[in-house]
């Protein structure tokens, strides 16, 4: 039963990643692109954790943790660049 639920959840997050890619390619404003990038990071964390359950190892949590940190920092840096024209003042 868990295998089917994993497949369902992974399919949902894969289609969600495609939606985010579409919004990032089309998005009329820079805020849309940042938002699409942030959503892609969160969906990828979910996919990494799902893969960890699938393989039955706890190795992928470190990868998910690092990905969450790097995604947050990059989102804030991009927003800072748009807001002030500079990242570190």
């Amino acid at each position: 039963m868990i295998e089917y639920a994993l497949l369902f959840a992974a399919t949902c997050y894969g289609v969600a990643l495609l939606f985010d890619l579409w919004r990032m390619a089309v998005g009329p404003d820079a805020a849309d692109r940042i938002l699409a990038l942030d959503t892609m990071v969160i969906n990828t964390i979910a996919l990494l954790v799902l893969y960890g359950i699938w393989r039955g190892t706890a190795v992928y949590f470190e990868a998910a943790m690092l990905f969450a940190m790097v995604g947050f920092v990059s989102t804030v840096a991009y927003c800072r660049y748009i807001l002030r024209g500079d990242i570190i003042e």
Partner: protein
Amino acid sequence: MPLVAEILIALFLVVSGVFGFVGSYGLIKLKDSIQRLHAPTKATTLGVGGVLIASMIYFYVDTGHVSFHELMITLFLFLTAPITANFIAKAYMAKNTREDEVPPSTGDYGWSVYDDPPESPQQS
């Protein structure tokens, strides 16, 4: 693995998959940039929380001891999601909203998006 744990894990996985899907569907469905800010920041965070709870239950039943990695990831995501939403809204306002369109601020200084920060007392 007992049947109750399997049902619980499968339920959390399905619910979180639906939430993540709805969050990204709102990202392409809603009309305005500020409206689009609403869907992914809440629904997708909840979806990832569901996946992490399912993973906690799975590894607790599988190995017998609780792992705290998932709690750390959940805590980090729940802390950073409002900050990123606030930053994205500020970036949108800085590019698309003029200063005379917003109401005046109630504090001593103007809005932080448009005005420079006040001088700190240490510098003068």
